Structures are given as structure tokens and as C-alpha cells.
């Protein structure tokens, strides 16, 4: 008699525990964060710069093709913006706090360049090339100088002349 009561109580405990587990799993849900981190670590390419031609970066700018001709008016504006907002860290004739922008279009896509200017915080967190650049330049972060998209486009045009 006592034994059967015990058994029925045991069954109750098992049922309650099952409910708890169900609630717990519904609360957490899905893939564990450890798995996600592992996956990300595994999928990291060995040379982040290798795929530059298909990397548009992360930010407001989508892939686009530059027109054939250089817009000289835009170059003038870009030079002005570059000299007031960028030269504290970038010099044309040498590697400084950050890399020189000379010849950058042989290494980066136009959209990537603009996204790096407009969204440096997001880029160094998510973009493999930007992450590597942060390492290559002593952990010195690219400053967000709050350029407008038009300013960034003008700076890009100026870079085409370097």
C-alpha cells in the first residue's frame, strides 16, 4: 500500500519534471550560443583579404560600379572633406595610424570603402577584412567622423585620383 503510494508519487514527480524541462527548453530555444560561436570560428577564411572583389562590406551602401569618367568637381569636394576629417590618421605618402588610401581601388570595392567610412564600428565587428585591418594596425580603431553619404562618395572620387 505504502509502496504503491510512493510509486504514484514518483510518477507525479516525473511528470512535473517533464513539464519543467519542456518550459525550460521553450524559454531558451534553438541553437546554443556556444554552437554558434564555434560555427563562426570554424568558417573564418584563412586570408580575409583574398575575397576582396566580392566583399561590399556592411553598412548603408550596396554594391555599385563607378562610372568611367572621374568627376573633377566631386574630387575637389572629396579632397576638402578628406583633408578636414581624415588626415589626422591617414596620409597619402605613407602608412600612418591607418593605411594610405593611394591605390585603394585595387584592393577594395567602392561599396566596401564607403561602408568603412560610414559604418566603422559595425565593420570592425562583422566584416572579415575590417577585423583583420584592426589587427594589422595595432588595434587602432577607424574613427567614425560622421560623414554624410554624399561626403563619403566624394572622398571615394578623390581616392580614384591618388
Amino acid at each position, binding site marked *: 500500500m*505504502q509502496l504503491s*503510494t*510512493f510509486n504514484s*508519487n514518483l510518477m*507525479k*514527480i516525473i511528470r*512535473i*519534471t517533464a*513539464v*519543467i524541462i519542456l*518550459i*525550460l527548453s*521553450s*524559454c531558451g530555444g534553438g541553437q546554443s550560443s556556444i554552437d554558434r560561436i564555434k560555427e563562426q570560428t570554424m568558417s573564418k577564411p584563412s586570408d580575409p583579404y583574398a575575397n576582396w572583389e566580392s566583399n561590399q562590406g556592411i553598412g548603408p551602401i550596396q554594391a555599385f560600379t563607378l562610372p568611367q569618367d572621374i568627376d573633377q568637381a566631386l574630387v575637389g569636394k572629396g579632397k576638402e572633406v578628406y*583633408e*578636414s*576629417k581624415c*588626415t*589626422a*590618421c591617414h596620409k597619402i605618402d605613407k602608412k*600612418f*595610424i591607418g593605411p594610405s588610401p593611394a591605390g585603394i581601388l585595387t584592393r577594395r570595392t567602392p561599396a566596401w570603402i564607403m561602408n568603412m567610412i560610414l559604418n566603422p564600428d559595425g565593420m570592425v565587428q562583422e566584416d572579415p577584412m575590417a577585423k583583420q585591418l584592426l589587427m594589422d594596425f*595595432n*588595434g*587602432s*580603431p577607424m*574613427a*567614425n*567622423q*560622421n*560623414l554624410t553619404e554624399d561626403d563619403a562618395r566624394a572622398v571615394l572620387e578623390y581616392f580614384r585620383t591618388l
Partner: protein
Amino acid sequence: MQIRNQIICCICAVTMLFIVGSCSQQGQTGALNSSLADRSYVAPGEHDEFYAFISGGYSGQLSIYGLPSGRLFRVVPVFSVDAEKGYGFNEETKPLLNTSFGSIPWDDSHHPDLSQTNGKVDGRWCFINGNNTPRIARISLSSFETEEIIEIPNSAGNHSSAFVTENTEYVVAGTRFAVPVPQRDMPIEEYKGNFKGALSFIKVDQETGRMNLEFQVMMPGFNFDLAHPGRKKSHGWMFFSTYNTEEASTLLEVNASQNDKDFIAAINWKKAEELIANGQFETIKTEYAHNVYEESTHMATSTMKKEVKVLDPAKYPGLVYFLPTPKSPHGCDVDPSGEYIIGSGKLAASMTAHSFTKMLDAIENKKFDGDAYGIPVINYEDVVSGVVQQAGLGPLHTEFDNDGNAYTTFFISSEVVKWKVGTWEVLDRAPTYYSVGHLMIPGGNSQEPFGKYLVAMNKITKDRYLPTGPELAHSAQLYDISGDKMELILDFPTIGEPHYAAGCPADLIKPNQTKIYELEKNNHPYAAKSDKEARIERNGNEVHVYMTMIRSHFTPDNLEGIKVGDKVYFHVTNLEQDYDVPHGISIIGANTSELLIMPGQTETFIWEPKKEGVWPFYCTDFCSALHQEMQGYIRVSGRNSNTPLKWSLDGD
């Protein structure tokens, strides 16, 4: 055995409840969220619902807290220097502390009040008074910086200040201590009838916030203690409480407590405006400083003003009336409808509610009980509307909620008492710890209080916190007033000694925040807006260094050609254009504070090198992973050396 099984079952059930609870608690409120701790808990990363602007008392500053968490976000330096922020130490802010007595590094700040539009808090500016050397300051609620300080002449103990009218037409500043006007050498015992009490009306420009001392009503030599504006029907009037109508100059605690009643002074400022417009005023000579910080130049200037327009109330009938109010009234608070003016006789147990409607009727029908210095005194019976009887001991201040209730602090009996406006019945009382002074309900001094919380600011702390030697932080207490009963939900420490406070929903202020200063709009005459402009210029023994800073270096960072005996001005511009990236700078042996420079801003400090050598300077605000590397050197040569002026960064 069965008992044990039941216990196991119980544990399981409780565990399950706990899990269900913790699972459903994400971002929700409800029955499970009703504990006192939950009501002041703001989860990590979440924002508070209200801003609270709490006066810093004898710190001279304004502190910014979040409610309901009681977290301190910022101390805005106003009347006292603040080495942490360079306030009063850098060349740009020094003029803000100028007065007709010269530069003063300290004051006692008492009563913050927020700007209003149509009787509602609008989130533009906060005004606060300096009590000791009379001044009113205006703080921008987009930059949280002091933008303007105006000195108040003919005034002393600037206490019934800084209260705004319904559309921020004026900020008022009333003198607590009567003084000779103009100031002169005379026997103190001749105070009575000779000293004056100036009530100042400072006009506020609605676009820029700029203040101008428009006129002073020159009252008899009483002590003007506190003030509040009329609203709705009583808009156009300002009410000031008085004590020491005895005009005693010594042992005031006895001699200023003789009269059974003192007055609340009702000032018709619309009438005053008419008089000024009609040229019916006197102009008297005086001297006061007007200091303005210009955001585009990042720099303050100080101008000395020489005269003020004055109105003598005895000469102009209809300008001022006295409302007899028992026992040295302290608080003088106007309910949201504008009908009732509550006088809290600090030596009484009851509060007096005057009726604005009755006041107008008494004026129209000349129901006067004589006059005081030519100012009509209205019959007490013909203006009083109700009395909150025996509510507690030592009533001080009253604020209002959005449901027709009033809340009064009682200093002597250490409590807040809730009562009904109109019926004057006491509804609830809650103890405070200890000896409460002011209280604040967000929007509680406006047509539309936001209610929900009440902050009581106490004068005595004793055992409320871990002891810290003889000096203790003053304690503020937060009550939830959303229900019928007030509930104490949080204690939090404050800076200095808080007097009044003001509060409003965060949404009124959050969207208007200044995040950076745009370099294009930086008109500081000594700004270097790019590295190309970085340089050193010598003019005799005065040397100007135009320096820039960005993560994580200075340009230039190697300077030579400075000599012992030079006066070196470091004009430093932060070239960052990103939110929350300030840089700091100081140099060994500087006889001043650091500079703490916001993105796009220029600030200046002076360094007078006394010894030859090579002296380092560095960034004082951790700015990036390479912050430790943000440093430079200055070579200081002998007084008569000919080391050429030279500057560089990385050899360029």
C-alpha cells in the same frame, strides 16, 4: 514517507512556479512584478522613465538623476568650479563665474525649475539660483551645460528664485535678506524702513533662452522666502512668501517670529509690464555681471551691466497686494488649476489655502485691512479659502499630482502628508528619514503634473547608509504615489544638500541631445580644425599652441622652443566626430585642471613652465586600446636660450 513525498512535490511545484515566473518576466509588468524592489528596478541597459534635476545645495551644482532607479548620471557644474570637467579652470568657462565682486569659485544652489510652454514642462532649459552671491543660471537640456549666468543686483540671499512663469516669459529672483538699496555705509540698527527687498523679473528670449534683467519691484525690507507662478486663471501673477515682516536685524529666530501672520505677496507682473512699456519706472545705477556661453565659439564672455529699471509698489496701485498668512510662511505653492495658493507657515501645524478668485473679488471690493508701506493688505477672511488642519508639525513645501491631490512635507514631524485640494482633508501620511525639506513630483509645479513618483529630500541622514565619518550624504527618498497610499520604494544619496528639484519624462529631453559639436560649426578663434592647422606661434613670451587630438595621438606631439617664463596657451581641438569620444589633456606641473574636450570642441589651458627639462603631457580620458600611447613631450629651455620653435608628429 508520505510527508517526505509531499515535501518533494511541494519543492517541485515551487520550482516550477519560479521557472514560469522567470520565463515570463522578460520586459513585462504584472502581478509578479509588484514587489517594492521591482518598482524602482531599471534593468541593465534599460533607461529610466524620468529625469530628475536635483539642486546641489552647497556644492553649487545641479545633479541629474534617473527615476525610478535613483541613478546619478551627471553633475552639471553651474556656480562652482569642477576640476573633473575643467569648468572654471579652462579659459573658455572662466568668464561664467565672473561677478561684480570678481571671480567666485563657489555658490549655494537651491531651486531648479524647468522651462514651460502653456503651463507644461517643455524640456528646453533648466534654471537654478545661486543663493549666496545672487545669480541665476540657465542650463541647456540638449548639451547639459551651463550656458548663461546673470548676477542679480540689489539682492542678497537670492532665495525666492529661480521660478518660471507659464510660458517662460520670466524667471523670478527674490531677495531673502533685505539690504540697503543702493548699498551704502549705514548703521545696522536703522534697518527698519530703510532696507529694501528687491524682486527681480528676468525676461527669457524664447528662441535663444538669453536672459535679461527686465525690472525689479522694490519691496519693503521683508525676507522673501519662496515663490511660485500663477497658472491658467492666475497666469500673469507671481506669489512670494515673506517672513520677518518685523524687520528684525538680530536674533531673527526670536525677533522675526513675533507676528502672528506674515504675508504672501501677490505681484501682478502683467501690470508691471504695462508700467515699463509706458515708461513709468525709475532707472537706478548698479553693477552686475551678465555671462554668456556661446556654443559656436565654445567660449563664454562676461559683460558688466550698469543700471536696472525699478518699480516702487507704493506708487503704482494694482501692482502688489499682501495676503496675510500665518506663522512665517515658507513654501508658497500654486495648485495645477491656478486657483489655490498654499502657504505653509513653518511654525504652524496647519496650511493656509488662499483663493485666487476671492483675492480678485477682495481687490475689486476693496476688502482691505490697511496697508504695509503703501501696499494694500487684503482681509485674511476675504482671501482664505481653506485650512488643512493639524496635518503635522512644521509644514514646508507642497507639490501636486494629476488627480487633485497635494503633498506637503513636514520638517519637524519628518513626514509627507497627502491631502485633497478643495476639501482640505488629510488622506495619507508617510514617514521620511529624516527631517524632510523639499519634495518633487515630476511636473508638480505646472498645470499638468506627471504624478507617479514623489522624491522627498531630507536634511538629516543618520543611520540610513553605511557611515562615512562625521559627514554623511544627504538622503533622498522615492515614493510610489500611483495608488491611494504612498509607498516608500527607494533611498538614494545625493550631492551637497539638495533643496528643490524638478522632474519630467525622459522623452521630453532624450530626442534633443547634442552628441557631438560639428567641426564645420566650430568658430573658436583658436581652433585647429585639421592637422594642417596645428602649429605654434610666439608673441613675446606668450606662446599659442594650436593642437589637435584624435584616437590616439596629439598633433603636434613633440614641441621645442618653449622657455622658462613663457605663458603657454594650449588651444586643443578634439577632431573626433563620433558620439562619446572625449579626450583629455594635462601636463606635469600645470597649475590648473585637465581639459576634458568633447568631439568637435576646442578648449584652452595655460601652462607657465618654471623648470628647464623635457616634460610629458598625456590624454586623461581612456579613449581607445592605444590610449596609453596618447602622449607627447615639450622641451623647455632656459629663459635666455635660443632653441628654435619647432613642432612635429612622427617626424613630419
